[in-house]
Each structure stands twice: as structure tokens, then as C-alpha cells.
């Protein structure tokens, strides 16, 4: 690189060395909570309670994972979350493509676009808020239904914009030559545009699946049935401890201690798929977020 053309002064060398140490340290700080929870999950419950565990398991044991293995609710919720991620992904990706293609048309070829954009814009800027949305979801009859986890959040306008920008960036000639050959919009979308959109579909898929994997609020207000609770909702109910509950008997304290240690294992198992997947998808979301620019 051109920068190396300059001879490194001693001050520069110190800076470079310090910079490496600093950046790596910051990187490690980002990992500490994950390592800590991993250490907790393999530690003896008394060591956990006493606060002895830092970044390495104390009194190594797999007991916590054995407790989790016996927790049927945890696996049911894990299943619900996997299912909602798959179904939610399918529904959202279809809706996103359907909306993005017409919106990517140029004003000249699709004059109505400017009014339709306003329709999407208003939905982006204003929202009814928590309670009216809840009322609608319940009026539609989705309370306590699996679809309450899918349909209300099926459209994310940012994802539509992201894909729209991707389609806009494709050469116009692709569409035009297809039209000259007598194709209509359906053929153009499904035969020409869609196959070229795979990179942006990958990016958006990641965002959608992440959303579903991490969603907890919809599960806590729309779902009453324990067997339908998604993973994060279930975890919230056990991890975010209600401190107002007084533990009186020794048995209760003992149970709480085991639960605390087992929670570490549950948290880690919930993070695991994300930890495994995201490093490989890094290039997709890095590109995607730059194109979309405003993804929250």
C-alpha cells in the first residue's frame, strides 16, 4: 500500500503497536459475555452462586446441560422458534420480492409508482403503536395462534427498500430486451430478475431469520399457550428473574441455584446457532447493510 512508502518513525511504530493491542482488546471485550456464559454453563452450581466463575469453568461439570436435556419446555420452545424462523422466512421473502420488483420500476415505465411509494412511506413513518396493533391481531383471531408470530411482522419496509435498490442497480437492458421479445412482468421477474437477486435474497434472509430467532415480545403478548411460546419468550420468563419473589426455604434456594446455573446452559444453547452461522454470512450482511444503509 502507498502508505508504507513513508519510512516509519519511532512514534509511528509505537502507535501501530498500541493500535493493534487496543483493537484486539476491544474485539475481545465484545466476546467476554459469550465466554463468560459458556464458562458458567460448564461450572458447578455452587461456584456459580458464589461468583467464582469468570472466563473459565470452575468445578467442571456437564450437570447443567443434563438439567437442560430434561427440560421439555426448552426443547418445545426451541422447536417453535425453528419453525417460526422457517415459515416466517418463507412468508417474508415472498412478500419482499413481490413488493420490491414493482417499486424498482422506473417512474416512466410505471407511472403509478409515485403513489404506491407514498403508501409504503406512510406505513414506514407512522405506526399505530403497541395497543392498536394488539387489538387488530386479536380481532383477526390470531391470539394464541402460531401465525401471530409470523403475519404481523411479515413485512419489513427496510428489507423491501434493500431489495428494491438491488434490482434498480441491475442493467435496464435486461428488462427492456425481454419486453421486446414479448415477455410480461411475471416472466421478467421470475425468469430474469429473481435469479440475479440471489445475493440480496441471502442478505435479507439473514435479517429475517435473525429477527425471528431473537423475537420475544410478540410471543409474550400474543401467545398464552406454553407449548407455543417461542424460545426467547420462554427464556425471558426464566432468566429475567423476578427479584420480588422471596426465597424462604433452603429447598427453594437450592432450586434457584440449580436453575441459575442451568440458565447459563440455556442461554448458550440459544446463542449457538447464531455463533455458528454469522461468521460465514458476514460478507452478505456487510454488503447488505451498506446498500440498505438504514437497517436498524
Amino acid at each position, binding site marked *: 500500500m502507498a502508505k508504507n512508502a513513508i519510512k516509519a518513525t519511532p512514534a509511528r511504530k509505537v502507535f501501530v503497536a498500541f493500535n493493534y493491542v487496543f483493537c484486539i482488546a476491544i474485539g475481545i471485550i465484545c466476546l467476554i459475555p459469550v465466554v463468560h456464559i459458556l464458562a458458567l454453563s460448564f461450572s458447578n452450581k455452587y461456584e456459580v452462586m458464589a461468583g467464582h466463575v469468570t472466563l473459565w469453568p470452575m468445578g467442571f461439570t456437564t450437570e447443567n446441560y443434563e438439567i437442560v436435556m430434561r427440560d421439555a419446555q426448552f426443547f418445545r420452545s426451541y422447536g417453535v422458534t425453528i419453525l417460526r424462523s422457517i415459515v416466517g422466512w418463507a412468508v417474508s421473502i415472498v*412478500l419482499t420480492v413481490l413488493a420490491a420488483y414493482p417499486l424498482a420500476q422506473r417512474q416512466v415505465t410505471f407511472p403509478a409508482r409515485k403513489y404506491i411509494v407514498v403508501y409504503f412511506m406512510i406505513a414506514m413513518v407512522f405506526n399505530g403503536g403497541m395497543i392498536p396493533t394488539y387489538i387488530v391481531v386479536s380481532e383477526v383471531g390470531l391470539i394464541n395462534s402460531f401465525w401471530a408470530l409470523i403475519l404481523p411482522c411479515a413485512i419489513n419496509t427496510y428489507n423491501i427498500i434493500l431489495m*428494491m435498490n438491488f434490482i434498480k442497480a441491475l442493467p435496464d437492458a435486461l428488462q427492456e430486451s425481454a419486453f421486446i421479445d414479448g415477455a410480461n412482468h411475471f416472466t421478467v421477474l421470475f425468469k430474469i430478475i429473481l435469479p440475479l437477486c440471489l445475493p440480496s435474497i441471502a442478505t435479507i434472509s439473514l435479517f429475517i431469520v435473525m429477527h425471528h430467532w431473537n423475537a420475544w415480545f410478540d410471543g409474550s403478548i400474543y401467545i398464552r399457550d406454553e407449548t407455543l411460546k417461542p424460545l*426467547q419468550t420462554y*427464556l425471558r420468563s426464566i432468566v429475567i428473574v423476578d427479584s420480588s419473589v422471596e426465597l424462604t426455604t433452603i429447598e427453594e434456594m437450592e432450586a434457584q441455584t440449580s436453575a441459575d446455573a442451568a440458565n447459563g446452559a440455556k442461554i448458550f444453547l440459544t446463542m449457538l446457532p447464531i455463533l455458528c452461522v454469522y461468521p460465514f454470512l458476514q460478507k452478505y450482511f456487510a454488503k447488505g447493510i451498506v446498500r440498505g444503509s438504514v437497517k436498524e
Partner: protein
Amino acid sequence: MSTLPIDKKTLKRSNRIFSKRRLKMDYPLYILLALPMLFLFVFNYIPMAGVSIAFMKYLPAKGIFGSKWIGMKNFNVLFTMPGFWNALQNTVTISIWKIVLNILVPVCFTILLNEMGRQRIKKTVQTFIYLPHFVSWVLLAGIFAKLLSGNGLVNQMLGVIGIEPIIFMGDNKWFQFTLIITNLWKEFGYATIVYLAAVSGVNQDLYEAAAIDGAGHWKQMLHVTLPSITPTIILMSCLAVGNVLNAGFDQVYNMYSSAVYETGDILDTLVYRIAFGTGQYGLSGAASLFKSIVSGVLIMVSYKAAYKLSGYHVF
């Protein structure tokens, strides 16, 4: 097309939206749009009409059409509630700190990362700092409750340098600080992505030219790297304006407790507790409508500013 001599009249006709010819060509687009627009209608537009509960004494049993209209009464109650002004103040304080730090820190870190020559190490650091963004606040709140507790890891480390244990999540003096710092920790890495993209787009010749003109590393950073990300900084600052009333429901709701309502309660959590805690749906709707309107205006201002200052189009 543009070379053909078309008079204005013909152009106007061809641009008409609902001419027969147009519809014949465009109908597939309407069919494609139908489903997404229906979804938006049901889950965005109908709730927007549902904000009318803010003007009602809404009872779930009676529904929207059976509940009594009470005019501005909910707003009168809301605006005289001390909890509301407190929540509003907390919301603005927390979110402005978050916005400022979430621009400043990623920009600084981008510049530091850019000074790293070894790509392998740089990529690894990047992978590490993106991670927290993908972990939910539910899990992080559970982890931080342990890390930041009286005998947690952080207080143990502070103890080494002789600082008394701090109750980060249960003390009004520290709670906002805790929210802001943990949010920064979670999001700063992800926020570097846009700045890194801007930096990587810089023409390397510029550095060379600067070096020939006698600019050292510091001067190169100041006069080449920094200006290259200034447009992105301006854009991000503009867009952030729309978030002033979003202090982060997911984070606060999972991290706060009744001990820190004084400094930790934000508009969204207030809306939630009024509705699901006390069942005063109308009052909650009023708070929510207040937030939605102010936020909506702020978002429009932010888009306008982003367009004016950096030519950014939303659609």
C-alpha cells in the same frame, strides 16, 4: 427513446396512470403488489386508525365500536402525570447519548481499524465486534444481570483497583449509564460497517498523492480518510434524528426493574405498563399516539435533511 421528437401532449397521455394501454401493461405489477399492500393495510393502516382509542375510554369487552368517546380526557390525564414527563425526559436523554456515541465511537474505531495493515487480524476483529448485534436483549440482559451484579465479573475487576461494588442495574445513579454503555457495546461494531465501506471505497492514489505532498500518516488520516467518511457521518446523523424517541424498548424492558423506574422508565415501557399493567388502554393509547406523531414528524425531518444534505432517497 429520448431522441424521438415527442411533443408534450403525447408524453402526458403516455404518462397517464389508468389509460387502457397502461393498465394492460402494468396489471402484473398491481397483482404483485396486492399481497404486500394488503398486509400493510391490515397490520399498519388499521392500527393507525386504531389510535382512536386514545380518545376513548376503551374497554376490551366493548371493543372499538362499543367504547365511549371521551375527547381529550386521556391526554389531560397523561400530560398531568409526573411519570409521563419523567419518561419523556429519560427517553430523550438516553437516546441522544446513544445516538451521539453510536456515531462517534464507530467512526473512531473505523479509523483505527483502517490503520491496521494485517488484513487477517483486522477481519478477525471485525468478526468479533459484529457478534453482539446478533444476540437478543433477552439473553444479554440475562448475561449482564450476572456480569454487572454486586459480586459479578465487572465488580470483581473494579475491586482489584479498589473501587467499591457498583449496583449498575439497580441504582438510579448508574442505570442510564449502564443502558448507554451496554447498548454501545452491542451496536458500535455493527455500526462500523457503513464507515468501513466508505473508507474502502477511497481511491488509493489519494494516499499516494498526499504522501508525495509530504503528508504523514496523521495528515493522511485527517485529510484523506476522514473526509471520505464525512458524507456517511452526515447521512447517519440525519437519519438518527428519527430515533430520538426510541430509547430502545427491548433493552430497557429487559434490564430495568421497579427500583430504577425513576431514571430508566422510557415512553415505550410506560405505554406497555399502563396498558398491560393497569388496563388503561385509552391512556396508554394516548401516550403511544403522542410518541407516534412526534416520531413521525422527526422521521420526516430526518429524511428531508438526509435528502438535502446528502441526496439520500428513501425510495
